[in-house]
């Protein structure tokens, strides 16, 4: 009986380890996560529109149908990226996700404070390599540091009423993400 209880206790402990290990490993093992889903439709370092979600199909679950969405799947291994998007009339936001779908930065049109959201995306190492004198102009140059070499930029433009969809799409069509 005691032997059985000991085995059970060991099993429960091992079960706890299995639980923690699976929870921690799942993000790196997932094959149908947001990044993988976007990778299936998006080339590297280019902005492409994401089809609007419909009841039949959607690139990702829980997409907000009130938004026009474009993505840039970036790879900084060859160097930093320049990103820009003109803001649409209603509301535009740019969100940054790491390779493992962590939202590490997001900015909206009001926070950008201009007609165009413009920024440089680079890794911490690339930022450290920036020449000193270039840092002086950093006040009017928004630099975003990516924790991972690859990741996603998701650009969203709100379509507050159906009639605005063309304007929102046009604003997103002018978005650029290209190596410097």
């Amino acid at each position: 009986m005691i032997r059985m209880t000991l085995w059970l206790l060991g099993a429960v402990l091992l079960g706890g380890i299995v639980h923690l290990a699976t929870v921690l490993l799942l993000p790196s093992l997932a094959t149908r996560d947001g990044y993988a889903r976007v990778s299936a439709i998006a080339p590297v370092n280019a902005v492409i529109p994401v089809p609007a979600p419909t009841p039949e199909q959607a690139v990702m679950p829980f997409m907000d149908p009130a938004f026009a969405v474009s993505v840039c799947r970036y790879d900084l291994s060859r160097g930093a990226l320049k990103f820009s998007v003109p803001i649409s009339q209603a509301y535009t936001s740019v969100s940054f996700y790491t390779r493992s779908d962590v939202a590490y930065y997001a900015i909206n049109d009001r926070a950008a404070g201009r007609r165009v959201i413009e920024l440089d995306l680079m890794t911490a190492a690339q930022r450290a390599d920036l020449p000193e004198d270039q840092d002086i102009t950093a006040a009017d140059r928004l630099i975003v540091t990516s924790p991972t070499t690859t990741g996603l930029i998701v650009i969203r433009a709100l379509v507050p009423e159906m009639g605005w969809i063309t304007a929102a799409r046009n604003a997103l069509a002018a978005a650029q993400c290209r190596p410097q």
Partner: protein
Amino acid sequence: MRLLFGIVFALAVAAVIGLGTTWVALTRGTAYGGVTIGAWTAWPKNGTPGIDPYARAMVARTGELPVGSGDGVAFYARTDDAGLTLDGRCDVLVSGITPQARFWTVTLYDPEGRLVANSMQRQGFTSQEIVRRADGSFDILIGPRARPGNWLPSGGVEKYVLVLRLYDTPVGVATRTGREAPMPSIGRRACQ
């Protein structure tokens, strides 16, 4: 022989416990750090690098991308204020005001996050489309049959999820109570 039996038994139990608890944790939505106001719950931390491991695993499993904290915050409701599961065969009234935000949207999904088909092609409202009373409050009636006013067709599905997303809003990681963020009430009316 007994040792072998013990090892096999222990490994089997460990696998069942370990994988079972992981499955339950990731499907039942037991992420930490939620802000619950009425029937609505948001996880503002999920839109930051401080997202907890359970939420990360959940996001990896479902394939969604959480709303970034500089963008907005998403509140989810799976039940009404009385705790009854949102049922597309019933009339449900969403009534009141929303927290301060430049724009908001309310969207109806099935429990897996797919939009629900209906003849109107309407899956939600934006804050600009909604018809309001003079005091700024609004009623959204969700149900299978057409209604006057802000009618959101439920498509008659057995279960659905409402998501209220606030964009450019002060509501976020620091928000704790409904006084800071007044969310609309959700109440079930007649069922078919």
